């Protein structure tokens, strides 16, 4: 457990991660939500500072308002609370592809220093992988088409690599200008939230740079958990600890 400072409740590093991720979602935005950590963060945001956040799940749930955290992207609770339930082809063709969604919220198995995401295979040979991962799902087109992409995952040197083994979902490629050259409409990953801190792409190079440390985390911890030579922002900040209200709502969501 990472302990908060005086007067603030004890909270886990995962709770800090969820809270930090939720804060990045503005009220009135639309968010394409992956299951797991992204869904936790998005639902927390909707229950705290962003009641007008529109949650879109790839199962076809537009504007879902679940009262408990869904275990899958297709829980009945999501369908029952949605403004509209549509087919899966319609989600991708009419809603995601034209760039209607503000934020795509993704997880990753591997993430590299330019925000490229791997959820396909670990190892250099696609046909003889060391580990076969689940695959792409909706992520490649979420990463391409949403106005921006937030990534949330636990930070360690196996996950945070210099170069992903396989680009499942394109981030910033090899740096600035790659997305434009490929004609990708969205801005790509603009935020990475981990259990240790927050990374953002450098405006000039698009390399992910440490922008914030979570309370109680030191820089060496983050460097040790990063598989590349991590750059640190000149204005490195500290993430505000979770508030009592944030923790209460997060725990209610998890318990429901």
């Amino acid at each position: 457990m990472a302990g908060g400072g005086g007067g603030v409740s004890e909270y886990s590093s995962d709770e800090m991660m969820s809270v930090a991720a939720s804060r990045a979602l503005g009220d009135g935005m639309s968010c394409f939500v992956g299951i797991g950590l992204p869904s936790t963060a998005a639902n927390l945001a909707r229950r705290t500072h962003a009641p007008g956040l529109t949650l879109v799940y790839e199962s076809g749930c537009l504007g879902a308002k679940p009262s408990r955290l869904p275990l899958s992207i297709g829980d009945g609770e999501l369908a029952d609370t949605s403004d509209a339930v549509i087919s899966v082809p319609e989600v991708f063709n009419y809603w995601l592809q034209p760039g209607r969604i503000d934020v795509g919220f993704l997880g990753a198995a591997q993430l590299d220093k330019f925000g490229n995401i791997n959820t396909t295979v670990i190892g250099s040979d696609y046909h003889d992988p060391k580990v076969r991962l689940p695959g792409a799902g909706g992520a490649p087109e979420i990463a391409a088409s949403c106005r921006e992409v937030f990534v949330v995952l636990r930070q360690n040197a196996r996950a945070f690599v210099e170069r992903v083994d396989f680009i499942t979902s394109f981030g910033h490629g090899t740096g600035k200008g790659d997305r434009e050259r490929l004609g990708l409409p969205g801005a790509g990953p603009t935020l990475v939230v981990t259990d240790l801190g927050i990374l953002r792409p450098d405006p000039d190079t698009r390399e992910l740079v440490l922008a914030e440390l979570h309370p109680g985390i030191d820089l060496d911890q983050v460097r040790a958990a990063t598989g590349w030579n991590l750059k640190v922002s000149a204005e490195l900040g500290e993430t505000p600890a979770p508030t009592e209200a944030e923790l209460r709502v997060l725990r209610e969501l998890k318990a429901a």
Partner: protein
Amino acid sequence: MAKVVSLSDAVAELVHDGDTVALEGFTHLIPVAAGQEIIRQGRRDLTLVRMTPDIVYDQLIGAGCARKLIFSWGGNPGVGSLHRFRDAVQHSWPVPLEIEEHSHAGMANRYVAGASGLPFAVLRGYTGTDLAAQTETIKPITCPFTGEVLTAVPALNPDVTIVHAQRVDRAGNVQLWGIAGVQKEAVLAAKRSLVTVEEIVDELEPRPGAVVLPAWVVTAVAEVPGGASPSYAAGYYERDNGAYQAWDAISRDRAEFTKWLAGVAA
């Protein structure tokens, strides 16, 4: 025109060795009982198609029914990996498994093309990813009006598609509601189709969000209450999350799985 038959007769008649078979259902209404009937009847060399191969496909793959998998996300939702799928890809156990891998957007559009009688679909997809280099069924296509380059994927037209629905009426019209996934497209894309249902009713009552598949596009219907468990059927039963978690332990180990398989075959 849909005829009502038993599940075993339907699988015996509609699913043949070597067929391309799609079982669809996006988290909801997964035709698990039908998948296990395919295992029971010992089908081999199937090309299995499914956007989200989950535990029923892990079972089919572990049982050696499949020679190829066409998919976009193969995991145990909310739990983790599909161990039989991984074992087949990484170690060819019990038989080698060829894979053809897409994104959800690509798979959904392949079914749409199949349902539409078109040989291919166009999307903005795969750009910049390593998938395009590994998958032959992803090609560039140029807009004849703007010159823009987009992505084409070929139609999916399974020999047989199997889905699960809540209801069918006496005339064979199928009704499903809740999350509808890609089931309509998968049925319309297929040469033959089997729908397992929770119940047969005299008349379908109109419902919000219901999808109706008219009898004349369904080959056979089998009444299989609980046929989507451990996934769920809105209005009938909830998802059995415990079964998904339990599958992790069963599937992790070849011996455990083999024991499980013997139970299904019995």
